[in-house]
């Protein structure tokens, strides 16, 4: 496997030290890392889950809108960040690996390196409720 860009390497190192759930994808949307607070949130560690193609990611961690209806792919913050290279945020429901549903503030930020290189995206997840309290 080719070496990750250093921006992604450094981002992974930073994320590993944060107490905020963070996951990182490459420019194609494939999952390359998530940190321990994310693991607690979704019920599986990165060591168990491993890197994941984008298609498997959306199958394994199902997202719904707050009312429970399917969330169109183009409305997902991560997809917006990857395709439009702009930040996006939305309250969502996510099904954890253990089958439970959680309400999360899902914030995705594109990772754009020097020279406008689109390198991937970072997702911050924040456990909340429907009133965002």
């Amino acid at each position, binding site marked *: *496997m*080719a*070496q990750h860009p*250093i921006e992604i*390497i*450094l981002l992974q*190192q930073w994320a*590993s030290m944060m107490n905020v759930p963070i996951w990182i994808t490459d420019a194609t949307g494939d999952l390359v890392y998530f940190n321990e607070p994310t693991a607690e949130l979704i019920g599986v560690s990165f060591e168990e889950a491993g890197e994941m193609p984008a298609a498997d990611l959306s199958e394994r961690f199902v997202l719904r809108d707050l009312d429970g209806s399917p969330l169109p792919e183009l409305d997902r913050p991560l997809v917006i960040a990857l395709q439009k290279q702009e930040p996006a945020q939305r309250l969502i429901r996510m099904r954890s690996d253990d089958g439970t549903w959680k309400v999360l503030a899902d914030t995705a930020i594109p990772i754009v390196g*020097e*020279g406008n290189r689109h390198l991937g995206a970072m997702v911050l997840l924040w456990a909340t409720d429907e009133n965002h309290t």
Partner: protein
Amino acid sequence: MEVIGADGSLLVLDAGSGLARLNSVLNPCPPRVDVLLTHLHMDHVQGLGFFQPLFDPEVEVNLWGPVSSTMNLTERLARYLSPPLFPVRLRDLPSVHPIDVRPGNFTIGPFDITADLVIHPGPTVGYRIQEGSRSLAYLPDHEPALGGNFPREPEWTSGYDLCRNVDVLIHDFQYTPDEYVSRQGWGHSSMPQAVAFAGQVGAGSLVTFHHDPDHDDATLDRLHEIDQAPLPVIPGRAGLILEV
């Protein structure tokens, strides 16, 4: 540091205080000089103002170096080559051409060159220089351990792709392990990290570089007594000549 090709083509690697010594060597000066800058910290550019070819209208001087997110190389270099830091402005130099370097490949004469960003504060590249089947990689300022849990998988190691299986690796060798503890994030390697990196990428040999100014020659001699290195370790020193 100079790299001289089989046909006499010349590359100069960085432009620190030692660059002025090249003035007497380049006599006569070739019509073209290419200087590859890894980054613009003062210890890597301070020699430019004292490099005679920059002031010679008969010599084409190409300065290759990394850009920042908002400034090209010309703008970045001009912060040094302009008053009050230097009396001569970059724009007044007769035949000097700053060339922006971004990750990727380019050719200078017989040399195929690859540049890639490496971990060091500010935009910093390493260079891989290939002529025919022989290769040299130059990473004078590099802190691969800042990527976490070093050494780790190649895909998570800064500089891995650039240096993989290189014949000669010139690499940052600044700190002892004890010194590194309080200097994490400064952008430099400890000596064991440099050796580990060189072994991980499969380099043919490691030339140690960027010695700490507080390490005298006796200290450096002692620190180079390395047990069981996975490859030949050559102490870098002024005047060293290597055939790649």
